[in-house]
């Protein structure tokens, strides 16, 4: 009985192995063919887009020729995978170029496939397709679909809501800060980075009205986002917002504030404020970072450094000692280290 069961089981395992072998074989063949096809599409697209952007006066490239060439390499309605790949190439190119050539690209995109692919994805149930659809819509500047995307800004899936939030910035610019700061769910670091980048690339002229309205938000991710915007656009007039969070109880807010502060050279009043509150920083790594900033951006304030040298934070002593040592105050460092050892009586004969 056991033997019969075991024999049956063995047959099943051998069958499963054979299925895997066949699957491996098919996968190898498919991938080789697919890579070849994708390479061909990429080369053709590169050729077409370059000729279109710098069109020859004698023999200009027409949209009809472009569509025909794309069809020849497999960009057809019945081939969604190829169309998806073309969309990736379109986005990649769009992200690489700004200025008048970018506008020319937008005109091209409106006249070639993908056959309404992106907007149909937005309506799908799965997060992956939905998020991809949103991305394609904003990357290819399809303004007309903004209203369909806007409602996903608080979606439970992080990728869907991230793409929707980025789309808000792409289509509405600085005004979108009105909504972003009051979103329900947390915003990841990458979301913040992407939003700042899109704002910078698409709306380089700051609109401080919207920025200042967003200051009211209590959400810590919103504060981090605003500080990053201030840093990216080098808004010296808004530096108080960063300084306000330099000594915040939240570690991440302090970290972001210290990082963003590094872009600016502050006034002497601001520097005095930083030095006055310096010891309030509870974390020694952050203190070290701020100490570097102070030493690089202000005149040597011996009293301040001596206060730190003789202060309670032992982790910082070497950093402070190095600054004093390298700036002509070796004797003060020596004095500090000497006073650490109690006076010994010398026995001399």
């Amino acid at each position: 009985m056991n033997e019969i069961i075991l024999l049956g089981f063995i047959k099943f395992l051998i069958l499963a192995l054979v299925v895997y072998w066949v699957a491996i074989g098919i996968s190898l063949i498919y991938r080789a063919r697919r890579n070849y096809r994708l390479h061909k599409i990429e080369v053709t697209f590169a050729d077409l887009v370059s000729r279109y952007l710098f069109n020859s006066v004698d023999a200009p490239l027409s949209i009809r020729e472009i569509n025909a060439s794309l069809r020849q390499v497999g960009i057809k309605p019945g081939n969604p995978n190829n169309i998806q790949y073309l969309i990736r190439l379109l986005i990649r190119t769009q992200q690489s170029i700004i200025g008048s050539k970018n506008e020319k690209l937008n005109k091209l995109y409106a006249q070639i496939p993908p056959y309404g692919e992106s907007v149909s994805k937005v309506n799908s149930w799965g997060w992956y397709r939905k998020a991809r659809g949103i991305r394609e819509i904003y990357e290819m500047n399809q303004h007309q679909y903004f209203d369909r995307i806007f409602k996903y800004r608080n979606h439970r899936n992080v990728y869907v809501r991230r793409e929707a939030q980025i789309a808000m910035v792409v289509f509405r610019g600085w005004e979108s800060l009105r909504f972003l700061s009051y979103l329900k769910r947390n915003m990841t670091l990458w979301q913040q980075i992407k939003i700042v980048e899109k704002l910078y690339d698409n709306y380089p002229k700051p609109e401080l009205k919207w920025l200042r309205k967003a200051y009211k938000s209590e959400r810590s991710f919103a504060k981090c986002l605003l500080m990053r915007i201030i840093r990216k656009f080098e808004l010296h007039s808004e530096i108080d917002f960063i300084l306000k969070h330099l000594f915040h109880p939240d570690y991440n807010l302090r970290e972001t504030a210290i990082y963003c502060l590094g872009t600016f050279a502050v006034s002497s009043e601001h520097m005095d404020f930083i030095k006055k509150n310096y010891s309030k920083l509870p974390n020694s790594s952050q203190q070290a970072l701020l100490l570097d900033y102070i030493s690089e951006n202000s005149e040597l304030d011996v009293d301040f450094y001596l206060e730190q040298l003789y202060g309670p934070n032992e982790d910082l002593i070497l950093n402070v000692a190095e600054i004093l040592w390298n700036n002509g105050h070796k004797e003060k460092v020596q004095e500090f280290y000497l006073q650490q050892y109690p006076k010994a009586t010398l026995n001399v004969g």
Partner: protein
Amino acid sequence: MWDSIEGFFSSGIVFNLTNYFFFLYGLALLSLYFAGVLLASRAIKKTKQKSTFLQVGDIVSATDIPTVTLVAPAYNEGLTIIENVKSLLSIQYPYYEFILVNDGSKDDSLEKLIKEFDLERHDASFITQPIPTATVRYIYRSRNKKYTHLTVIDKNNGGRADALNAGINFANTELVVCTDADCIIEQDALLKMVRPYLEEDEKEIIACGGGIGIANDSIVSNGVLKELKLPKSIVPMVQVVEYIRAFLLGRMAWGEINGLMLVSGAFGMYPRKRVLEVGGFNAKTVGEDLELCIRLRMHMENLKIPYKVVYLPETLCWTEGPPDYSILVKQRDRWARGLWETMSLHKKLFFNPRYRYMGILYYPYWLFFEFGAPLVEFFGLICIIAFGFFGWINWPVAILLFFAVYLLGCLFSTAAIFMYVKSFDHYTKPKQIIELLLAAYLEPFVYHPVIVYGQMLGYYKKIFKIKSGWGTMTRKGFSASGS
């Protein structure tokens, strides 16, 4: 009660208990492997989908991304040190520093580095050392603007863990990556490794690992893997399969349920702040990578901060595996000792509900199925010999059972190879796949017994307190192109 040893063993209780023990142990292990295949498939699919939204090209041009330091210890690597350093310097990441820690090398490594990279000596007196290490003698920076990202720390010998700690002390970036100087790291490895740190918001990422591949007999030029070939000899070839299985199935599956207890020492990324908080790598164990990961997890549990240890399925680091049995045994002996040391150091985790899943599930798994497996196998071998001697084995059933279990093992390896081939383009030739499959099917006969031997040797040394450290692994080195 029993009038002889035979009587004792053939009594129903002992015989049945033994049988049930092996049966249940095997069943539990198979169930875990099966669950692992399902979880790993899901994890790989999710990782691939997520990467659509955060590609390498997006990260390389971004600002505000975390700063990273790569720390690599080096000991007596004078032959290949220049090439290795140039290779590691070529990693593409905008905010990247590289620290090479010369751990008291007795050869001319340092002199070669000073000459090649135009290094200038700096005093190490003012370097803060949150983690105590062996004395740092000097710090070297290059005068040449081409090498602004390179720092060489020259210190007294203290071992790999100690050297890593010295590098971590000196680093001033948010993240640190620990590797070995002779590993070949993919150019975009850091761009990929940093993804989890950029995307996670609910849980803090405390460690991130990438897949490690075996590149024996591959063509390497200027520290770059030009052509990946399968190793020629059986020992490293089976390791290719073993690594694929371990990383693609094992690590991805555990990562999916946040149960990863190990990020490989050959290539792991950590937030520097957390590593300093736990005191860095433990220099007293040879399993410092496993020990650090467990300690980081315990630290976050104590702080009651949600955290994650993640793994990327892609092979981002290539290394040279032991080329023959004797070096393989040394390696597995060391791993077994490291595992023993770590399990004892953290025995308070065992079924400790205070540490939640780590105490109730993950640590017991490591204890029973990673630490315990060679012991169970060895015990099983003894039982087969003993029962066979006493004539208690139903040989037809035993042979069929053996064959069934063997085929199950082959199936798991085949599944891993299939997932690897489907997801990545490292091995694309039919001949390579056939060789990999054959290596997988030969593994139980020509490789696995040697592994068990190496592990038992490690345990033997721990039981009888035989001192043994890292040992020396003689490396052949990768072949250069054209030679």
